[in-house]
């Protein structure tokens, strides 16, 4: 009997998303670190001007979205490995989704104040 056990490709999509978001965050990290180290010691004027620029806000938002998505895949993997009771795992998954969404909301608030 032929049975299709994995049909929806959830695994592949999450795996790929985790890698793409990782590359986005790695590129952002290197650029951000270079800017900060170049302007070291940092002053408020430089710091504020940096985050007043449109491209920096959008890039940081892209980073934050990538982080939330990337972290969700990682958190889900960890919960699937260590938390066996279904009810507890589901509860924790919901809590982490709420937490990561809150991080994202906070980031947007900081960037567009």
């Amino acid at each position, binding site marked *: 009997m032929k049975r299709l056990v994995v049909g929806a490709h959830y695994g592949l999509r999450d795996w790929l998303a985790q890698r793409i978001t990782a590359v986005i965050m790695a590129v952002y990290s290197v650029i951000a670190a270079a800017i900060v180290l170049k302007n070291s010691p940092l002053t408020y004027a430089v*710091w*504020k001007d940096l985050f007043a620029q449109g491209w920096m806000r959008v890039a940081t938002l892209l980073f934050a979205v990538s982080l939330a998505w990337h972290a969700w895949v*990682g*958190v889900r993997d960890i919960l699937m490995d260590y938390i066996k009771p279904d009810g507890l795992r589901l509860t924790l998954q919901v809590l982490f989704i709420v937490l990561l969404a809150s*991080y994202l909301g*906070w980031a947007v608030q*900081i960037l567009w104040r």
Partner: protein
Amino acid sequence: MASASAKKIRPKYLSLPALLFQIRLPVPGWVSILHRISGALLVIPFAAWALYLLDTSLRSEQGFSYVRNQYLNLTLVKLGLLVFIWAYCHHFCAGIRYLFLDLDKGVDLKTARLTSWIVIAAGLALTAVLGAKLW
């Protein structure tokens, strides 16, 4: 029948002491578990902490100078930040290694062990360099 007494008991369930002291994890295993631990730490508490620092430092001139001149001078904060930096750098370096492994680069045992050592060393070296800037 001497061999009968030496027959191994199966299945073997792993106790916590066995996991901690009996099983020697190979270096790539250490990179892997540290990747997981650092990732978990980055979600809780470090992402929230980074957001707090960004929020306070961008809010006002006073907020910025408070973070810069007072908050970041507290010893406990500096130690915490050091762990944060290590977690970020290790996760970053190990992550790049995994991206290459996904592309089938460096999967033979010798290379995999070598790159594992490089990742661990690079994470610590980056932490030392950035930590020195902080102090």
